[in-house]
């Protein structure tokens, strides 16, 4: 790994000052994806700005009738969080199945969302929940946040500080794992609110996307049978040595039916 400068600011304001001083920098959250890509030479920033000494990024609280989670909370902490388990148990469960315990002890929700890996779980979860992503300067609806492969609406000098979640009636997430990395070959999140249903799919060539046809069918009747005959377009799916696009599209439709069943079985 190429050498770099390292700094560890203590506040969001200091992070923003550093992001604007012209040095080629990357933000270091838990590092579980960033360090791997730096080891491969896919990234070689001149400086890392570590976010692990900023208390404001680790808060979780109820805010405007919604649950707010700090960006620097780890997958492991969120999986075990009584607040999240009470608010959206399906999302806590999703967090508890990311990678393995060692990676969950370092990797963070904010790092995963800002990285927007097309095989990651968090983007599908927050997209299906219609979450609000909170930055240092604005709030971004999940629908506007993901902009394609590893792409987000964040400006180069913008910091993701946390997310805010409405309380759904039901939420469940299921993935078909790539067995070595435990990333999702395909992952499907389904959320039922009092005023509608949202379905988000991970494992596409453009990252997490919503599936409007599935949402409409489930809004009529929240039951796996409502999805009978609905297909996922294989042209939107990733296609690589782990699985072809046609197989991924097939898995996605199967997972959609299963995740609805899971939502019905596990949620009140």
């Amino acid at each position, binding site marked *: 790994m190429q050498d770099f400068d390292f700094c560890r600011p203590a506040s969001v304001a200091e992070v923003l000052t550093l992001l604007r001083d012209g040095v080629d920098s990357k933000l*270091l959250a838990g*590092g579980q994806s960033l360090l791997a890509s730096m080891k491969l030479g896919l990234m070689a920033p001149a400086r890392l700005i570590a976010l692990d000494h900023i208390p404001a990024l680790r808060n979780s609280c109820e805010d405007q009738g919604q649950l707010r989670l700090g960006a620097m909370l780890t997958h492991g902490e969120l999986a075990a969080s009584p607040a999240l388990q009470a608010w959206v148990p399906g999302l806590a469960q999703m967090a508890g199945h990311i990678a*393995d315990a060692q990676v969950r002890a370092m990797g963070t929700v904010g790092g995963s969302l800002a990285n927007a890996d097309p095989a990651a779980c968090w983007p599908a979860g927050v997209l299906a929940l219609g979450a609000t992503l909170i930055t240092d300067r604005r709030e971004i609806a999940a629908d506007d946040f993901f902009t394609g492969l590893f792409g987000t609406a964040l400006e180069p000098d913008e910091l993701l500080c946390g997310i805010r979640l409405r309380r759904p009636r039901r939420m469940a997430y299921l993935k078909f794992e790539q067995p070595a990395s435990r990333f999702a070959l395909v992952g499907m999140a389904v959320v039922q609110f009092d005023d509608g249903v949202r379905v988000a799919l991970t494992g596409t060539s453009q990252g997490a996307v919503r599936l409007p046809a599935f949402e409409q069918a489930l809004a009529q009747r929240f039951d796996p049978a409502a999805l009978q005959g609905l297909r996922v377009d294989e042209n939107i799916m990733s296609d690589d040595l782990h699985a072809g696009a046609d197989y991924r599209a097939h898995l996605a439709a199967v997972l959609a039916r299963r995740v609805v069943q899971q939502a019905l079985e596990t949620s009140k």
Partner: protein
Amino acid sequence: MPRLALTINGQPQTLDAAANTLLLDLLRERLHLTGSHRGCDTAQCGACTVRLNGKAVKACNVLALQADGGAVQTVESLSPSTKAGKTWHPMQIAFSKHHGLQCGFCTPGMLMRACAMADEGVPAEDGAVRKALAGNLCRCTGYEGIVGAVCEGMRLMRGEVVEVADAGL
């Protein structure tokens, strides 16, 4: 060069290390604590697992600087050598009894993850142990012995059983 202050196996240390030093390299190359193994170097196999502030992490995927100010425990901390000889940790005794290793390369990581699992309250049951141990791979595929060892090791650590017969140590 950045300066680091961390506690390693109970000993406070101050070290200078380049920013791109991985925690694993700091342990192995600088401190000669070679019990933590570099297996895949991609955070998948878990042979490099150490505990950072109590949590099991993969030292090949953590910068030494991320551990700055923290406490690191490596496999060497389990059985310190003293003038009186070596004292084996209950988890090591259980691994010996259950033949929880074949070539032994994954064992340091297995032991450190298993000790963290004991503290996390993972039930000493086959299914729960396999799930919690998913980040540690054994290329000899000796999982039966490993899972049996971890179950008994956790019971020993929690005082649910007192001693292991025929550990052979």
